[in-house]
């Protein structure tokens, strides 16, 4: 379990924290009409629409397998020590995974920009290779 200290140091916001606050930095905060906003072209791949449960055959099969493996005798909460351990392992596993996906996306962004620069192109609206299209649901800000 991650225990967040009551007060983090002000200068914090290390890179691991960035992934969790990224959407706030990009999606929240004050917007002033008189100012221009830097184009967020490319950032859409950070907003991959991973619905938590995806209704797909793959998901169904995965769940079915998982249920077959579950030890029902142990009940939903087993003994008090165990769920924590399982939770912890799953947690760090999941974190590693999502972090990996995001850094991957970030790299893809950098690559896309590098490529755009190399092409000598300053325009932002033109198409670029979509390395990770996924099931991204475009949000309207991205079209601005």
């Amino acid at each position: 379990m991650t225990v967040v200290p009551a007060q983090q140091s002000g200068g914090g916001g290390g890179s691991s924290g960035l992934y969790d606050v990224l959407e706030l930095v990009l999606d929240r905060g004050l917007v002033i009409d008189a100012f221009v906003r830097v184009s967020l072209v490319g950032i859409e791949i950070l907003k991959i629409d991973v619905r938590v449960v995806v209704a797909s055959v793959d998901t169904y099969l995965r769940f079915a397998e998982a249920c077959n493996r579950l030890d029902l005798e142990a009940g939903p909460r087993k003994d008090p020590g165990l769920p924590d351990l399982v939770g912890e392992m799953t947690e760090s596993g999941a974190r590693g995974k999502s972090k990996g996906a995001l850094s991957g996306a970030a790299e893809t962004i950098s690559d896309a920009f590098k490529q755009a620069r190399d092409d000598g192109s300053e325009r932002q609206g033109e198409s670029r290779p979509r390395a990770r299209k996924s099931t991204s649901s475009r949000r309207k800000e991205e079209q601005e």
Partner: protein
Amino acid sequence: MSTYVYGIAASSHPGLPEGMSGVGDPPRPVRILREGDLVAVVSEAPDGLRPKRKELLAHQNVLSEAGAAGCVLPMRFGSVAPDDNSITAVLAERAEHYKERLQALDNRVEYNVKANHVEEAVLHQVMAESPDIRGLAEANRQAGGGSYDDKIRLGELVAAAVKAKEADDGAAVQRALASAADDVSAGPESTGWLANVSFLVDRDSAESFLAAVEQLRNDMPHLEVRVNGPLPPYSFVEPGPAEPAGTVASGTDTGAG
């Protein structure tokens, strides 16, 4: 030369991040623009600024530093003004509004909470609560895993049950923490969390808020709960209470104008 804006604060703010490294490569030094009772935390806006990891970090670090010492209204990433004068003009023009917001958010910070299911634990719950699912799973197991159709049927039932739990647990997370906070703001959706909620918390109550989070973790061990904070109040800068409720269709995307 255009100017990048990080945030707005009161001129009485005790710890403005002047001279800190801002966006750009090399990082542009952070400057302070003053206008009346307000200041803007700015730097030169580098040409071709892009939403890269490094730049987002710089934006967040400057605001995090400023927010640690006092109240700051964080700008959304990437706000660029044509020049310094146009920023001080906005500060002058909307001074009352920003002062009101700064006052409302004074001594308050944002905590962002995200939650997900621990898969194995939630599957246990789903099976424990549904005789149908249990029966199907048992039948499949005895049939050595079951046919493709049997697996799909079981998986479909399980997925529906887990989905329903996501909705319930998302609401439960918000309910459990709302009472320990001054305000609540739903985070951006579609980012893969069953709950993604920001809470506005008085600095002096931060400990009890975090205790509520711990309690939540204990009460709902099938959830992985992540907390980020204290953050500058990104999710609470708008809309001001001066605006009549309901006049803004979608509050989060509208400008301050």
